């Protein structure tokens, strides 16, 4: 250091302008970080989808795309509906009370659906977003318990779900499969992505 004394007022102004520059730098970062957000185009996508389920036979499942996600429509057999009661004790959240993916009121029942036999759900595991595979056949099979009643198995981390998309205990997935907003346009026509509440 030289032996000249520090000019306090110069230093104050140096610090002040340095801080002003830093603030400006932070503000400059805003547009760049904001550009990471979903674009208007991405936000606009996701219109509701209409499905005809007249040809869906008992035990059959169709997958349709809504907002880029697979939505499953499963027409459950009487045996499958009966299995829902049997597995209740092994489920993490049998009555869908958790709030992470709130189940619409009209599906907050024993079947998690408007009509008991037709189950509509988003086929995306609440763990890390894989799409579980169908394991609708009851009985012992690889990666599943011997008293398996039929349901879904996530291939990524082994979470299992019953035929109402309810997650079993002690699995990595914390939540039941999401039930999307949906409504019946007629007996056999479903509208996925919109219900009476959102429409109103």
């Amino acid at each position, binding site marked *: 250091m030289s032996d000249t004394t520090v000019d306090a007022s110069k230093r104050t102004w140096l610090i002040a302008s340095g801080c002003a520059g830093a603030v400006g730098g932070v503000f400059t970062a805003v547009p760049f970080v904001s550009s990471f957000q979903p674009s208007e185009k991405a936000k606009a996508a996701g219109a509701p989808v209409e499905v005809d389920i007249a040809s869906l036979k008992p035990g059959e499942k169709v997958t349709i795309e809504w907002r880029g996600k697979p939505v499953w429509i499963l027409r459950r057999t009487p045996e499958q509906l009966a299995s829902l009661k049997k597995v209740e004790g092994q489920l993490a959240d049998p009555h869908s009370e958790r709030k992470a993916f709130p189940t619409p009121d009209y599906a907050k029942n024993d079947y998690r659906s408007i009509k008991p036999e037709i189950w509509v759900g988003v086929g995306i595991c609440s763990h890390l977003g894989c799409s579980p595979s169908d394991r609708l056949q009851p009985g012992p099979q690889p990666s599943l318990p011997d008293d398996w009643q039929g349901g879904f198995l996530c291939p*990524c981390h082994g979470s299992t779900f019953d035929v109402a998309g309810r997650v079993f205990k002690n699995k990595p997935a914390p939540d039941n499969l999401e039930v999307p907003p949906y409504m019946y346009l007629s007996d056999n026509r479903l509208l996925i992505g919109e219900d009476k509440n959102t429409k109103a």
Partner: protein
Amino acid sequence: MAEFKEISPNATATEKLVNWFDNRFPSAGSFYKDHMSGYYAPKNFNFWYFFGSLALLVLVIQIVTGIFLTMHYKPDAAVAFASVEYIMRDVPWGWLVRYMHSTGASAFFIVVYLHMFKGLIYGSYRKPRELVWIFGCTIFLVLMAEAFMGYLLPWGQMSYWGAQVIVNLFSAIPFIGPDLALLIRGDYVVSDATLNRFFSFHVIAVPLVLLGLVVAHILALHDVGSNNPDGVEIKGPNAPMDENGKPVDGIPFHPYYTVHDIFGVAVFLMVFSAIIFFAPELGGYFLEYNNFIPADSLKTPAHIAPVWYFTPYYSMLRAITSEMMYALIACVLLAAGFAILKSRMSVIGKAVVVVATLAAIALMLSIDAKFWGVLVMGGAVIILFFMPWLDKSPVKSIRYRPGWHKGMYGLFVLNFIVLAYLGTQPPSPVGERISQIGTLFYFGFFLLMPWWSRLGDFKPMPDRITFAAH
């Protein structure tokens, strides 16, 4: 301005040219001297010391092949998969460039894992090389990001669902998680927006960071000097020096280690080429079979697993179930119990421990196992950064540590390989149990290191490196 050096008019044309440059760009000459001809490295480097320079070679291979792939690849969800197939089938020699890049990715991790293992067994992270190690760990972390984002680009099923899973890891963070995941994807699902930005990160942003870190890693290494298999300092205050002040146990990097490393490069390229030409997919480990199916956002493949180099961490992620949380809570209680009963902390310190433990347990019970799984996965990498302060053994090198320490490192490697294997397999109850034990061992190895690393009978350290001329 530096002094202008005059050269004898009788000097050769080459010498004159060198002098001309030296007067105008002396930095080049001093760089060569500082890092090549005048950088003294210990003369007892062994096999393990090949992997640092090999990592640099693979970095160059990845950058060069990457530049050429970028000329043909299209980062658009509609055509990305087809453009990779176009490179493979229609671009002249495109298949070779692509296989060099895909094999290079795996080679990078093999070389880096071996390089890190070298550091672990010879204590290369210890004072004064802490920053060398920290820069290295950061390189590893950034390399993982680079590899992950590159893996999305072929837009196959594994690319898509792998990205879906990893991006969703961020959404497990309480409060900010879902928004953060949205910010990373740029859409509500992995989509074209995600592909496009990952492309940008993969080809320019992350490589720039990587190059900067590599420079920092090497500069810091050359400032403090290389460690060696004996862990004896060749440039320390008591190290013998010759009449020019050069370490007696050191040799100039160039020509000695350049020649040494060229031999390593030759052997490496033989193996590398053999894989590229005869087994570029390496049985589904280097290029997964499911990735030859175009991405389908409605269907996850029946068995998904990350590429092999991520599988040990993936196993640890899968190991954290709500059951496992009780085991972890037990560990926290044990640690707190020891801290309270055995340490000589003040009463206030102990009170803090009790409060912290209770808070930790409350959080562990209230937040989903999913979040803790993500934390464990990240922690498995982050814990490496702390090695310089975890290892309390009186000697650096494994050579002078008790025999059972070698066993510990052997077990650690075995455990790492078992975790890696389980990560490639579909989930199973037995696999889950083993990976849970493996996870506990992995963290126990590091977290208990301050205690176990000082136990046992250490061998006396030699004053100078052990070296027999060959």
